[in-house]
């Protein structure tokens, strides 16, 4: 949370549109290309995810890791470009990053509890 300067210049400084918006034809076409490109990448990623199941990476765990890696790449594309994360200012990151840490904590600690138990 930024320790902000006096926001007394609000009325003058309000922007019309956020940065990410294309507001002329050229910009728009560049963004169209970007969105279509990301869409194509996602579809390709889906095909890759399926095909990669046919390849044996050593162990079941490795296969799962590869599959999750592809999924994570697809997810990043959606988050950065479709959800405009790439253009957002710090405010959203400031609570999405702790959220990610917390959900990772939930997963990892549950997994640890699963394997680390009293053995009779």
């Amino acid at each position: 949370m930024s320790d902000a300067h006096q926001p007394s210049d609000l009325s003058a400084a309000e922007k019309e549109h956020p940065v990410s918006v294309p507001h002329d034809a050229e910009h728009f076409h560049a963004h169209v290309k970007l969105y279509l490109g990301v869409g194509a990448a996602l579809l390709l990623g889906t095909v890759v995810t399926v095909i990669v199941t046919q390849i044996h990476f050593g162990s079941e765990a490795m296969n799962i890791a590869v599959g999750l890696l592809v999924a994570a790449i697809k997810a990043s594309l959606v988050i950065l470009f479709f959800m405009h994360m790439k253009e957002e200012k710090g405010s959203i990151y400031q609570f999405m990053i702790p959220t990610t840490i917390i959900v990772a904590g939930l997963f990892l600690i549950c997994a640890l509890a699963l394997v680390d138990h009293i053995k009779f």
Partner: protein
Amino acid sequence: MEIPYTVKPRPDTGLWNAKIGIWLFLASEVMLFGGLFSAYVFLRFGAVPGTWPHGLLNIPVGTLNTAILIASSVSVVFAWAALKMRNFRRYQVFMGLTILCGAIFLGIKLGYEWPAKFHHFGAYINDDALYKYEAYLGNEFLAEEGEGRRRTEITGTFPTHEDHEAWENPEAKEFRLRLDAVNAEPTNPDNYLPHIFPRPQSDKVVTIQKEDVRWGSFFVPRHSSYFAVYYTITGLHGIHVLAGLIVFGYFMLPVSKRLYERDPEHMANRIEVVGLFWHFVDLVWIFAFPIFYLF
């Protein structure tokens, strides 16, 4: 009395209210699906090794559904961009396309995938009766393979209505099952390779004694922890898809045209907010698809 920053962003945060609101809501949704997926991790890795099912879901259909959802994500972005470009007609086209894709996704899932599963049956054989059905379970073969897998379940469909009734009727002592490929030829190594296209059902029919069955059920939530968590996660995901479609539908009504004419930026912001929700729904599916269908 007006709430500030509903449309114009606040300078120091760079955000308007609903954008923060939806991201906060999405953070809670991350925790919700995170809780469900951590349940999946807990159940899968707490299960007896080698008993977690594989290959029970239709991969090509799941892939198609994934592609449809991705397409709807693309079209909702274009719908938003159209509003930013002040082209209402184009917005309506892309919003309609988004709704269509979402509806097809739900239609395939609820109209084909789930009903197909509801007709698929599995019977877990008692430990002390496994030897009787060795021809369909292949446990000696699996033990040689050394992968630690053990098969205790015979799966397939009821060949006739009478067989289904025999299963339901407490008086009947046995029933017949038309076997899936993996039970028809349990020693065929080809049945253990990962397949993209579903293996066709065999023509073999086996008679199973009810007293040998520890637990039997159609592939419904109660069948196993695998199906329990599959239906719960994809079901909750489906409810989110439906909620998104309802909100999109609302923004196709005449009221949206009036809002657009009164304040086009506010309308664009609303579509951006719902779009963010829709992308999150897509994100959940991007993980759910490989986890349930492929792993």
